[in-house]
């Protein structure tokens, strides 16, 4: 569905931020991007969303270059769920979700009854129906993230790019957000999730792209990518994986620094 091949990009000549990244996103899967600050995750996300054109390489959606679509057509297929933020104006939750309808409306158009219906359904599927008329600016971080997910749903695209959905959220809200994402993936949506919480990748990722200095260190099944050797290399530290018994089998449960203080 969404394919990137040999993406290379540099903001300044001679200092590439992406060096030959390739990936394939299948329907109904969650792809995690992991790596240190400055490894190129955000640049890669901006390329995938069409905000940025890579210097080299191609990104295709259903075998058609994403820049061959008009911006509106692209936004009907690939959506971005930004990090939680505070907009300049105190829009209500419903007004915020309605903005996801933008690529489905004419430039001079305003939302119609059907758009309000879609927005309300999107709000219901993240469990925030009762928040509909509250100002977005007065919600907690977890609730804001859910509203932004609802906006992505109202956009009705097949691929959603999530920029650090677990940033600034407590443990409970990280789980609440990611359970909803996992549930939506089961229904066929695809997600690219950039994150600084590898533990969430252990639980929710179908595929992991581990990046280092603009390169793909490893790409594949979490069991093959989330290893002590690869994580240690990616994060420039000694990483240890803690296992726990799940019935009869040992499963990886947490990634921690090996020599951390107690």
């Amino acid at each position, binding site marked *: 569905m969404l394919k990137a091949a040999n993406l290379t990009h540099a903001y300044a000549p001679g200092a590439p931020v992406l060096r030959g990244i390739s990936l394939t996103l299948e329907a109904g899967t969650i792809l995690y991007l992991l790596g240190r600050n400055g490894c190129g995750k955000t640049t890669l996300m901006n390329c995938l969303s069409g*905000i940025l054109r890579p210097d080299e390489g191609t990104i295709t959606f259903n075998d058609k270059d994403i820049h061959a679509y008009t911006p509106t057509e692209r936004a009907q297929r690939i959506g971005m769920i930004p990090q939680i933020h505070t907009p*300049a104006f105190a829009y209500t939750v419903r007004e915020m979700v309605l903005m996801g309808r933008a690529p489905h409306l004419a430039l001079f158009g305003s939302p119609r009854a059907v758009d309000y219906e879609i927005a309300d359904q999107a709000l219901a599927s993240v469990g925030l129906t009762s928040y509909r008329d509250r100002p977005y600016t007065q919600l907690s971080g977890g609730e804001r993230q859910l509203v932004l997910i609802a906006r992505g749903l109202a*956009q009705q695209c097949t691929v959603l790019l999530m920029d650090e959905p677990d940033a600034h959220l407590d443990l409970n809200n990280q789980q609440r957000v990611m359970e909803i994402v996992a549930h939506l993936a089961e229904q066929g949506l695809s997600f690219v999730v950039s994150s600084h919480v590898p533990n969430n990748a252990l639980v929710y990722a179908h595929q992991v792209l581990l990046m280092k200095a603009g390169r793909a260190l490893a790409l594949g099944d979490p069991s093959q990518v989330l290893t002590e050797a690869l994580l240690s290399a990616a994060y420039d530290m000694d990483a240890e994986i803690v296992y726990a018994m799940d019935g009869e089998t040992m499963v990886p449960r947490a990634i921690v620094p090996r020599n951390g203080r107690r």
Partner: protein
Amino acid sequence: MRVLRLRGLRRSAASTRFPWRDVGYYGLLALPFVLIAVSLTLGLYGISIENVLRALLSPVFPQLADGVSSTELTLVLRIRLPRILSAALIGATLASTGVAFQGIFKNPLVDSNLLGVTSGAGFGAALALLLGGTALLVQGFAFGFGLLAVSLAYAGSRLYSTAPMIVLTLMGILIGSFFASLTSLMKYVADPLNTLPAITFWLLGGLTGVTWNSIPMLALFAVAGSIFFWLVRWRLNILSLGDAEATTLGMNPNRLKLVVIVCATLMTAAAVAVGGVIGWIGLVIPHAGRMLVGPDHKRLVPASLALGASFLLLIDNISRTLLPAEVPLGILTGLVGVPLLVVLLRRSRTGW
């Protein structure tokens, strides 16, 4: 069971509640038209509403002019009507361009003078007055220099291309202060007995000398611009989220922002050229609008058009009827507007 039924009742009662918000909104949109009619009857020379209506319709139905004195006809059609129309158009222009600028610059503390249009227009008018120009020359110079200021700011921002909006804002502030200095120079060299008071009075804003000659250009830009803002009003919500989000929502934010800036600049230059520098409206009426109808531009743009028109009509009525000598509008907007806004602020429940 009892609890469940109670809940059901409450919910249905809430959903069929009388839509006071909608009534208030549409009432607000009708307000300027009511105020225009009322304003025509007001003045040192009292005219009944019947005769005002007769006079208004007399160009189309000449027989209606019977019983209306020629003084009343002249007052209504040649003096009050152009002045009242220009007050409504200028108020609506300043308020709606303020909303548009606050939206696209994601900043509720700016108005359409952000890029220097008013400062440029002020200099143009001062220069024309210094040259002893006619009212029409003053209007033309103000309009031209207003556009020149924003064009210079835009050209300057092209010199540095990676953060266009921030550099554009900075250039606007620089060019604005440059023209403000030039205006001070004009005042410094002006004859203190007649030219200097004329410049000072113009810079404080006023509609005393407005005739039909000033109306066509003002009306053209005000009406065309307002229609454009009305059409793109919901898109202003998206632009206010920032470029990255607007792009992933399928828009070309820079193209629409440029059109909004060009449109708002033409409107503001035309308004300032007729009415002089009338501060406060562009900055504060958008906030009053948000307190009344919320921040959604779908309703905020129409509400601001209506509020701006009504507010400047009210101010101009006070200026020309209540006070023994005409007080410049730029002074009255703040004196009357601040108490009004404080009352609104106490009653409103916006998100911040």
